[in-house]
């Protein structure tokens, strides 16, 4: 009985009218079909170029399983890039577009809680993104023809993609709730995603440059003093993806310099630190969106 009830309430949540309505609206527009097509064409082009290069190398008899690995890595980065490109567009209008179409007030006077509305909107957007990403599986399937990639690696990568979709989506939903205009919400969400990819890398480079100048001028001789700078790389989706693909060995080689005391985060791989950091950000973004959706009396 006690096990059935949570299952029923979960089923009820996933069959709630907001999700149902979102699915209907999304799948009834031709835009969804064109989006899926555009995504598959882009991924197909990437895959085509990569497989051509691999094919040429094979003809020159220097094929090795390392090439499959490179193909897999390039495809994964392309996929992550496309997810980063698509997610803000799919999520940053979920609330603001309702406001612009003047349907939000009607929805807010119903019995649906702010939590249900926000989470349902995120789930429906992510679901569409999942359809798109899973539709690229056949492209990955070709990689298996060449061998060298374990199914578990593929599953891990897809789990990482899903996590990123949720994170980018949560930022989109938050800004869609904060800003009245969809255009502004989309721009700000792209800005945040761009900062995650580029900004964190620039911060890392600037800080390492600054530290090196400081050490060069006799400020410090202990390399362990600046391992914290690496945490800027840990919150970069690209480096986190590389950490997933490389089992974290590369990261450990970076921090395993002769240093002094190390913290917990010096021993965890990039991707795990990434997941922990963005899980906190995800929760904060969702909390912010839920609080902002309806006026709440201050206690």
């Amino acid at each position, binding site marked *: 009985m006690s096990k059935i009830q949570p299952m029923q309430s979960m089923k009820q949540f996933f069959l*709630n009218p907001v999700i*149902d309505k979102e699915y*209907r609206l999304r799948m009834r527009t031709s835009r969804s079909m064109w989006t899926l097509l555009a995504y598959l064409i882009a991924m197909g082009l990437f895959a085509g170029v990569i497989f051509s290069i691999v094919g040429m190398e094979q003809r020159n008899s220097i094929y090795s399983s390392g090439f499959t690995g490179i193909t897999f890595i390039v495809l994964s980065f392309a996929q992550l890039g496309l997810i980063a490109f698509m997610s803000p567009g799919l999520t940053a209008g979920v609330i603001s577009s309702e406001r612009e179409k003047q349907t939000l*007030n009607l*929805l*807010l*006077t119903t*019995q649906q809680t702010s939590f249900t509305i926000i989470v349902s909107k995120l789930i429906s957007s992510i679901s569409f993104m999942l359809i798109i990403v899973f539709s690229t599986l056949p492209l990955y399937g070709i990689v298996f023809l060449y061998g060298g990639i374990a199914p578990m690696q593929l599953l891990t990568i897809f789990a990482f993609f899903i996590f990123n979709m949720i994170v980018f989506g949560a930022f989109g939903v938050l800004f869609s709730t904060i800003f009245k205009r969809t255009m502004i919400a989309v721009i700000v969400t792209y800005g945040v995603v761009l900062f995650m990819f580029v900004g964190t890398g620039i911060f890392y480079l600037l800080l390492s440059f600054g530290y090196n100048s400081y050490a060069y001028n006799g400020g410090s001789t202990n390399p362990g003093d600046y391992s914290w700078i690496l945490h800027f790389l840990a919150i970069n989706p690209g480096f986190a993806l590389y950490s997933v693909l490389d089992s974290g060995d590369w990261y450990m080689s970076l921090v395993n310099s002769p240093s002094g005391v190390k913290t917990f985060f010096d021993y965890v791989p990039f991707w795990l630190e990434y997941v922990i950091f963005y899980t906190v950000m995800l929760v904060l973004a969702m909390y912010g969106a839920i609080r902002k959706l309806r*006026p709440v009396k201050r206690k």
Partner: protein
Amino acid sequence: MTEYMIEIQGLKKTFGTFHALKGIDLNIPKGTVFGFVGPNGAGKSTTMSIIATLMLPTEGTVKVDGLDVTDHPHEVRKKIGYMPDFFGVYDQLKTVEYLHFYGGSYGIPRKEREELIPQLLELVNLSDKKDAYVDSLSRGMKQRLCLARCLVHDPDLLILDEPASGLDPRARIEMREILKELKSMGKTIIISSHILPELAEMVDEIGVIEHGDMIAVGNINRIQQQLMAKRQLTIKTSSRHEELKQFLLDQPLVQGVFIDGAKLEVQFSGQDVEQAALLKSILLADYEVISYQEQQTDLEDIFLAITRGGGAEQ
């Protein structure tokens, strides 16, 4: 159990330095149809939004059936059906799906909705459009669909902000008939409209709001009596207009007389008895009266009198 569906005390709302509501007090008994009258920007929609839990008051309290809208918004939403002045619809949904969505959003089980929705569509005369996409409906049909949406959870209170705006005369009449039916069902209705004569036909009480202040509240006839202290009489005679004008100006309760062709417009401050006495004196003075009548004042006149200060002699 409170006898009032809505209790508003000292309601204030400010947006930055702009005072949208300056301390409104209002009680609306259950089962009343209340007309909210006021020029654009007077504070009608703000008041309605606060009642509908879409906005927080800066000061004051608003209760719906005894429940404070800021403390118990979730419970209040069960009791209200809100129709904003401007609203959109989900174009890609069919009429039935649209109502199912809102029914589900109010927690009505699907089985109940299957029975309820055809009845609602019948009430708003949209039964033949049940499988039509909302996008294909006319403005008037969308307004009626929105009204059906308001009723899907059988609320005790309907908050209708300009429900007839943008409708052609026929659609307006249809909307009015539906509202009359809802009134007969015992719903408490707050309705704002700029088409004032239409309101007058169906409302029990009116509230006139201007610049965020509630300047008059109560029964239309009572407000009319309070505010329209001067009666406008029209007297038509066959001849001797100038003479009659002078005669009338000599009467104690006559405030002014204007000649308009064969008619004389008389501003008179007396009541029914004095009005009858005036007619008697005119006839005794041997003037040939063709007609003698009091001009009827409607809600529009009251509104104009209040908002222009014309009825200030209360």
